[in-house]
């Protein structure tokens, strides 16, 4: 009997184990079921209730976006509470640091567990493209025109440029001004001290940087003419130097295509790029650039400028606030002159595409809910709802002086409210040059610069163009070229090595195929 008992005990325990695992598995699928039913409830109730949103149950929506600054906004913070009330929604926002958003996006896509509203930073990356081709995201072309704010606050250009290969929109573009794009900004207060004019050509630029360094404007022997960083596969913040020579614009650091006689030419093979490299190598030798620029991270290069050690940086006028607050810690006299945008160099300044990434909705979201998300974005873009993130809470984030709202910068920055702009952003035409809360004097000066820039700004002709070969092989070509560029600037390789490299590039069959495909794609779009 004893044996029998032991046997049955063994069986029982095994059964218990199996039962347990079944229950556990059941649990998780139950969860899903219950979530699904919840989701369905939400959406089924919304189906007929679109006209009376006030009575609807709040829309639960998960969002993934990136954030700038040190910390993301507080989920339970009062600003978000108020926004949720205004939107009649429960926002579950996953804030991902801007430094590794691309990685996170790719991994999230690969895991198949996408949030219901996703920031797609590069609508033309291979990962998103394949997703679109394989039907993983909602085509919102038939729907978005039903929502007034989506078409009013977002320019038609932005909608057009974010169209995928099939001519349809798979996301709501995040609108950005087309003018006032990130470009050189200079310490005008230093220029004034030295009685120098604002530079307009690369030679003048060089002379100005040299004057800054020779006169040690920082006063600690650490002055550099320019502060910037490079990426492993492109020139990062140094690309405006090269663009000033080539006159070609690109996006996210990759400046690769110049329109010459209706043909897109690969800029690294142009003699102007060679000139630019010689220019930078000379600048490095003359100690106008940070000695360790090749190992600087983006934030480190910004810190160098904030510490008052650099005479020039690549920035937008509207980003001045954080520089001002950092610099005023050591010198309370500073004003907007410390980040003064240059108009153009050699007649070149970049024009933006009118959008910066977009928000996509995965196909796993039911149609009704997708519509409700669009409607939520529509509400978010209304003045009443947008005002909450624009100004924060009265008495906390802004105060009213003489009937005008004034931002309390410190608290506004600490609660990092500006990060909601990463999801929904509304802007006037000057938003890249200055914000509403900036002093009038600065608005006037920066506004004039922007108007001047508009006359000569160069768009990125390659935006949205597609080449299958480029997706696979261009990154390696980029990296190899970038390695050489850095070595030439550091003086480890000679310009002769560059000529040899350009010769190989010109004969590279892969690159020639890429050039062919990009041009075919360009012509196809032009003929539309």
């Amino acid at each position, binding site marked *: 009997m004893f*044996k029998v008992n032991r046997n049955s005990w063994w069986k029982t325990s095994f059964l218990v184990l199996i039962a347990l695992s079944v229950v556990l598995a059941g649990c998780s699928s139950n969860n899903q079921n219950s979530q699904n039913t919840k989701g369905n409830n939400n959406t089924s109730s919304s189906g007929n209730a679109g006209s009376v949103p006030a009575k609807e149950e709040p829309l639960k929506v998960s969002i993934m976006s990136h954030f700038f600054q040190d910390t993301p906004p507080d989920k339970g913070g009062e600003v978000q509470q108020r926004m949720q009330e205004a939107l009649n929604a429960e926002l579950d926002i996953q804030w991902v640091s801007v430094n590794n958003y691309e990685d996170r996006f*790719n991994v999230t896509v690969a895991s198949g567990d996408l949030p219901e509203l996703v920031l797609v930073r590069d609508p033309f990356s*291979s990962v998103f493209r394949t997703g679109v081709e394989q039907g993983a995201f909602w085509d919102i072309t038939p729907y978005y025109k039903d929502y007034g704010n989506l078409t009013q606050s977002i320019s038609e250009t932005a909608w057009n440029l974010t169209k995928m290969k099939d001519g349809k929109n798979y996301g709501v573009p995040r609108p950005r001004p087309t003018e006032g794009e990130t470009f050189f900004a200079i310490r005008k207060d230093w220029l004034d001290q030295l009685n120098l004019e604002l530079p307009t050509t690369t030679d003048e630029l060089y002379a100005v940087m040299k004057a800054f360094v020779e006169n040690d404007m920082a006063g600690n022997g650490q002055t550099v003419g320019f502060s910037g960083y490079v990426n492993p596969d492109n020139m990062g913040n140094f690309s405006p130097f090269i663009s000033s020579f080539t006159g070609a614009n690109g996006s996210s650091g990759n400046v690769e295509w110049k329109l010459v006689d209706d043909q897109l030419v690969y800029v690294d093979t142009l003699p102007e790029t060679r000139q630019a490299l010689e220019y930078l190598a000379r600048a490095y030798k003359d100690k106008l650039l*940070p*000695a*360790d620029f*090749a190992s600087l991270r983006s934030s480190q290069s910004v810190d160098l400028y904030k510490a008052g050690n650099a005479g020039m940086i690549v920035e937008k006028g509207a980003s001045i606030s954080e520089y001002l607050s950092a610099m005023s810690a050591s010198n309370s006299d500073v004003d907007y002159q410390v980040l003064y945008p240059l108009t153009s160099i050699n007649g070149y300044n970049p024009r933006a595409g009118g959008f910066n990434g977009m928000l996509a909705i995965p196909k796993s979201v039911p149609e009704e809910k997708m519509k409700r998300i669009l409607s939520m974005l529509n509400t978010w873009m209304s003045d009443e709802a947008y005002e909450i993130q624009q100004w924060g809470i009265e008495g906390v984030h802004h105060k009213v002086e003489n009937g005008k709202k004034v931002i309390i910068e410190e608290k506004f920055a600490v609660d990092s409210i500006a990060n909601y702009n990463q999801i929904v952003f509304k802007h006037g035409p000057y938003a890249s040059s200055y914000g509403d809360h900036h002093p009038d004097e600065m608005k006037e000066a920066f506004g004039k610069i922007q108007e001047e820039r508009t006359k000569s700004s160069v768009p990125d002709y390659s935006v949205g163009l597609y080449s299958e070969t480029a997706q696979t092989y261009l990154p390696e070509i980029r990296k190899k070229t*970038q390695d050489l560029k850095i070595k030439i600037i550091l003086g480890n390789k000679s310009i002769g090595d560059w000529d040899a490299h350009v010769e190989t590039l010109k004969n590279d069959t892969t690159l020639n195929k890429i050039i062919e495909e990009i041009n075919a794609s360009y012509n196809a779009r032009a003929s539309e």
Partner: protein
Amino acid sequence: MNSTVTAANEKTVIPRQKYHLGKRMFRDRYLYLLALPGLLFFLILKFVPMGGIVIAFQNYSHYIGILKSPWVGFDHFIRLFTGDQFWLLLRNTMAISLLNLFFFFPLPIIISLLLNELRSNRYKRVIQTIIYLPHFLSWVIIVSLTFLMLSVSQGVINQVIEMAGYDKYPFLTEPKIFWLMLTLQSIWKDAGWGTIIFLAAMASVDPQLYEAAKMDGAGRLRSMWHVTLPAIRNVVVILFILQLGNIMDVGFEQVFLMGNGAVSNVAEVFETYVYRMGIQQGQFSFSTAVGLFKSAIGLILVVMANYMSKKMGEEGVF
């Protein structure tokens, strides 16, 4: 029920070898039950995910899943082996690994030999604690410290060099010394930690051997050479074999964090390449193929080293 009784009876009569596997398993059922959680762990978390390796032979797309992704055979491997990145990656990986093997590997043995000879236990413990400490710092911190010490504009060491009247040296952007920097960092971080195993092995040496050696007139160096080292020889061999298996792994974090534009042609290794291709650019199939190649080399090296050490009369790992 009868059968269980007879089975139990038979156990005492029939010699072990004649049992069927099933019966033997049944007899040792509690041991198996005990092992079950561990087996499940390996099965579910280690073996099942390995099925994902098939994407190395597909043009995997996450939107349509593993089952429906088109099959491409060895295309990704061909791209890897014929691409001009391959030799660069192999050279960098091997260089970093071999430098580690030659300079880093013997150090813990030497340190533990030295520690073993210390008379004062208190002093020995203090030293041990101090040299273990860096192991617990993450690479992020160590790399930041390196930057603080060595960068051209702010680095302490460069400031000292400048004060001494010499030219500053670009430690972080000089490709020639990049591998050496990595090895030195690894030594600083983990040489102390590595002594633990050797010290434990030395502690188990029979003190009588030392006494006998002393009687025979052996000095300290002699007994170190003829008693301590032979006693820990098999530990050294086993660790060496394991180290060989890792020869293609140079540690992603360290290399990735230390890398920058100026040194990238000596800093690109298989691991950073997989990250760049797979995570950053979403070429999952290709990067899986790279990873698979890397693991295969590691496996071959371990098996070979194990075979060699058995040939030479040492115990292997398996």
